[in-house]
């Protein structure tokens, strides 16, 4: 497989997807840096509340507006940013509010929604609303056309797929306007719907209480004028995701569980007919396959060089441990490549120091943008 630079050639959008803890944020940032270095105007978006992206880009904080990263920061790392690098942290609530303001027919309708208690809950907490807002912001930025490439660090949901489903789930939810008629159980609609519906409603009312039901009814009422607008927009967001100029990169770790999740995720992308670009495996223990020598031989060879038996024994034992991990990683990656029917997987080695600053980012960047041969050569320099 080609390096990231080739995969993203001619793309408008790169979406990094994967489960939590696999280094998605760092990978997204490194990709953005690399593409900006190639002369593009790039913006990287994250919705991670932990401010990791800001940290790794040397920014004190990120807001709901894109901010340009000082290119001089990268000079010291030997990277020349020929284009521009921008970053922003998505505020899901603020984005949702903006969207409501845009879709509302008038100020009164807008305020009724913004002031509704159910809305205040869903805009923060409803499963999928953060993800939906990430897509929404992506769409908005893409429509504005200010950037050559947008890199999205998807939210760290435990289930990496939530965001694919988010637009559909949210519009379904908002479509609840049809429920308004049932909120008046004595009305004509209830009679048409039959006894079942009114019993269901009364039981639900008994469980959650009248207040909550009234709030829900009010919410659907307030939203009713905006449903068509929301739906139309969600449709456009979906077609943007499926556009050939969009590219999904799956990010994972080399252990069994993250690899399983990457396989599952890839399958979902294919099912949804979304453009899969490649897979990046972080923190790989690079094997020294050709070096899998006899343990005892190695120990005595080490002892000869080090002149110390005890140290040689520990170094040999340590090497055996590393090799076992490297072999596991190689097995898992082989399985991943087979499942994804891709000849190559971009492997980023497990670095000695954990990656959280510019120099770490630069090092990851080197691997992502190197050709396969170059990458192997760099990695051979480390265990």
């Amino acid at each position, binding site marked *: 497989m080609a390096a990231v630079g080739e995969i993203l050639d001619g793309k408008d959008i790169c979406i990094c997807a994967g489960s939590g803890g696999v280094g998605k944020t760092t990978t997204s940032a490194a990709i953005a840096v690399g593409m900006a270095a190639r002369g593009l105007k790039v913006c990287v978006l994250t919705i991670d509340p932990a401010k990791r992206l800001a940290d790794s880009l040397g920014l004190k904080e990120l807001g709901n507006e894109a901010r340009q990263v000082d290119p001089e920061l990268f000079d010291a790392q030997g990277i020349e940013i020929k284009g521009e690098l921008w970053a922003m942290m998505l505020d899901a609530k603020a984005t949702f509010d903006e969207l409501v303001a845009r879709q509302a027919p008038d100020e009164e309708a807008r305020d009724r929604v913004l002031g509704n208690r159910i809305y205040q809950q869903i805009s923060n907490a409803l499963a999928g609303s953060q993800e939906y807002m990430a897509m929404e912001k992506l769409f908005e930025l893409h429509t504005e056309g200010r950037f050559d490439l947008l890199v999205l660090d998807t939210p760290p949901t435990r289930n990496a797929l939530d965001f694919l489903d988010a637009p559909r789930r949210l519009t379904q939810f908002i479509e609840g306007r049809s429920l308004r008629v049932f909120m008046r159980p004595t009305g004509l609609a209830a009679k048409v719907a039959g006894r079942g519906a009114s019993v269901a409603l009364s039981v639900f009312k008994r469980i959650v209480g009248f207040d909550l039901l009234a709030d829900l009814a009010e919410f659907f009422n307030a939203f009713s004028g905006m449903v068509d607008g929301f739906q139309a927009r969600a449709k456009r967001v979906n077609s943007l995701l499926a556009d050939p100029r969009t590219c999904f990169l799956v990010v994972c770790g080399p252990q069994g*569980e993250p690899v399983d999740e990457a396989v599952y995720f890839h399958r979902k992308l294919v099912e949804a007919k979304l453009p899969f670009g490649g897979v990046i495996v972080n923190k790989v223990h690079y094997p*020294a396959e050709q070096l899998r020598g006899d343990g005892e031989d190695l120990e005595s060879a080490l002892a000869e*060089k080090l002149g110390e038996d005890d140290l040689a024994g520990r170094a040999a034992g340590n090497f055996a441990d590393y090799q076992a991990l490297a072999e596991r990683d190689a097995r898992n990656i082989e399985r991943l490549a087979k499942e994804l029917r891709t000849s190559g997987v971009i492997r980023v080695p497990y670095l000695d120091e954990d990656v959280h600053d510019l120099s770490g980012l630069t090092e990851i960047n080197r691997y992502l943008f190197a050709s396969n041969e170059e990458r192997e050569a760099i990695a051979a320099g480390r265990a």
Partner: protein
Amino acid sequence: MDKRLVFVTGKGGVGKTTVAVALGMRAAAEGKRTIVCEVSAQENASRIFEHTEVGFHEVEMADNLWSISIDPDESMREYVLLQLKVRAMRDMLFRSRIFNYLAAATPGLKELVTIGKIWELTQTDRKVKRGREYDLVIVDAPATGHGIGFLQTPRTFAAIARVGPIHSQAQQLDRLITDQKHTGVAIVALPEEMPVNESAALEHDLREDVGVAVDRIYMNGLYPERFSNEEAEQLAELASAENGGAVGAAARAAVSEHNRARSQRAQLARLRRRVETPVKTLPFLFEPELDVEAAQQLARRLG
């Protein structure tokens, strides 16, 4: 740990499930009837036991140790059944599109019934058929961010539903979570920059915003200190002298190990400075896959 209910939380990918299972093994070995609950339908715990999916059942994994995967829809059914008693009525209810729609549309209801099921598991007098009595309930909780929201659900819900049965039930669940005598949280961290920052923030939020007792932080995946600084220097020299070959690779691996172990110790010290909770370390396991034996190794280290 003398708690009756323990939530295990932390950033994604830090080994929450393994630690939750190891805590369960430890308690079971001490003779406590223990159940480990998953709330995400991912069944990571049953995978550790190489067990086929447990689903919404209490399945015995080892002596004194059970596991359950709490599905919100199933929890909802069970809850409604306990509320309604009449099976026919419940069935009609679940066939009703309106009911399903409302249940799905009500923010936080899924999390609420999940916590409701956890509450039910902690009861000594269980109403569910064939329900066992447990001494300890361990929850493999959602990752940071979602985790805080999850534990706050009952309070949030009690505020939305101002009156009615669910209001008082939500309050009851909130009392369960904030009962510092019987309920606690264990945070799992990794010895790296960002996980340390997030764990410190998480500890603060759990204590201040949720009001739950944070009993312990587990620093997971700590590399052993295999080489002294002098030895590492010696090995580094050897690594640069040997180009290619097993000796050079082994020396480089040793230098790597030393660097990682050292930077991890610095992160451990940083975490200890930033939190009030006692931090306990768990070793990195040089195991290809985290299986039953790996969890048992960790369980022994938890003592």
